[in-house]
């Protein structure tokens, strides 16, 4: 999990796009996920996103996020599949449970939707320095810096958290606690008690960051303080056009 949801420096097209363009594209892709009911089209978009990530040198993190989303989708998939009763029965199970062709298609669609709506947003984090995201939000979206800073700091905490969790787990394992159980409930029971110390240490961390920010004049900042400008360039226009094209296609294409 090292480096999970963390900025990876680079010079690819995804790195160079304006943070606002990236936000807009993820929102568009998210919209596509819900506008389109074509399994093929959504799969195609997912592959497109993964392909673009691989080309931008963040293929590994994209796959990491993807596999996490895959696990989450699986839960959603299982929750859906038994509840659709329409259509032809494919498999009969005990307890009067059965899977229909329509149920299967719908469950797959829901799972794919979840993945497509979350993956691009998560990927923004790996190709955008958080300060650029905050800066662009302040400059272009007129969001007060305070909120932009809070949001980006929260995102910055995700990898810090995951490192900390694995450190605690390592420490517990050294004391003989076995975390390698396949039983999900048992695993949750083992991890739950770790949440309180984690919460305490993270509150401490946020306080330190607040102190550090204040000691460097955070309160003096105004909307014009940002040094970098996030002007839209030709490539942003092209990317946005592609986004519009993708969303138009999602309305037009009626593949299964």
């Amino acid at each position, binding site marked *: 999990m090292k480096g999970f949801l963390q900025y990876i*420096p680079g010079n690819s097209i995804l790195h160079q796009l304006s943070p606002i363009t990236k936000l807009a594209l993820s929102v568009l892709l998210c919209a596509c996920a819900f506008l389109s009911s074509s399994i093929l089209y959504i799969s195609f978009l997912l592959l497109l996103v993964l392909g673009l990530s691989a080309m931008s040198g963040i293929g590994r993190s994209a796959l990491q996020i993807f596999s996490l989303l895959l696990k989450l989708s699986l839960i959603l998939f299982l929750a859906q599949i038994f509840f659709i009763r329409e259509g032809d029965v494919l498999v009969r199970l005990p307890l009067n449970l059965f899977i229909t062709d329509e149920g299967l298609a719908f469950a797959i669609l829901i799972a794919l939707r979840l993945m497509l709506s979350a993956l691009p947003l998560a990927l923004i984090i790996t190709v955008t*320095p*958080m*300060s650029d995201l905050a800066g662009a939000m302040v400059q272009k979206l007129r969001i007060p810096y305070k909120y932009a800073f809070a949001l980006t700091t929260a995102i910055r905490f995700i990898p810090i958290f995951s490192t900390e969790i694995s450190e605690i787990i390592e420490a517990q394992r050294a004391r003989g606690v076995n975390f390698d159980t396949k039983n999900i409930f048992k695993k949750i029971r083992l991890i739950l008690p770790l949440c309180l110390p984690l919460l305490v240490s993270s509150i401490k961390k946020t306080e330190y960051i607040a102190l550090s920010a204040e*000691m460097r*004049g955070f309160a*003096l*900042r105004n909307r014009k303080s940002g040094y970098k400008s996030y002007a839209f360039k030709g490539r942003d226009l092209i990317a946005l056009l592609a986004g519009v094209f993708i969303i138009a296609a999602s309305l037009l294409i009626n593949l299964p």
Partner: protein
Amino acid sequence: MIKFENFSFTYPDAPAPALKNINLEIQKGAFLGIIGPSGAGKSTLTYAINGAIPHYYQGVCQGQVMVDGIDVFDSTPETISLKVGSVFGDVESFFVASVVEEEILFGLENFNIPRSEIEGRITSALDAVGISELRYRSISSLSGGQKQKVAISAAIALRPQILLLDEPTSELDPQSSRQIFSLLRTLNKSNGMTIVVVEQKIMLLCEYVDRLTVINDGEIYSTGSVRDVLSTPSKLEKIGVNCPRVTTLSSKLAAAGLTNEPVALNLNEAESMVRRIIRDYIR
């Protein structure tokens, strides 16, 4: 520049005060080293200068701390931030950005430094601590020592009147430590920056700073020029502060009645002292 008057501070719920009745005056343009055993209250003293006490650590305070004519307790953190730059002991917890460049830019933006000046400030701050090549690296990928250099660089980019450093070289190799102290000396001598540095490496400290303050058990144990403070090494060793070996040697020579010169602070001084003693002895 900085003045403590009968200052005492107790952390919330702590049984005893961390600082007791501190009276200390630090002149403008001073280069002061602070040393003392662990838990003595050195870090706490720095918090009282940069306003972390009382704005962050809300304990029980008595007395007064003035920084450049303003009372720390009556002012806001941003007012103090314009005067005092801080490098905290545990740098890791104090980063606000994920990339080195952004960390340095953060304060510059807050201070509304003119656009035309910013690039120069960033490059010179990185250059001064010798980490120009780390500019676009993500901070989490750096070593402990490199992180310390980033924190120092971010603080000096703001060119504060007072620079406060809490064990800035604790994770640095000897060569980098000297590099940082030479940088501090330059900032002090050429730019007139007032520098207060907490440091455990006494040898290094004594070589660079002008004045020394020893803290023990929340109190000022002794303060003055480096030579005056080190003139009684046995007294310092009693509280767990080890003097440089040359100082200990020369004070032992004096105690044995072989010389009445002031203690030696470095190898050269010790060498000429020993040479004189031998010459006198032969004669």
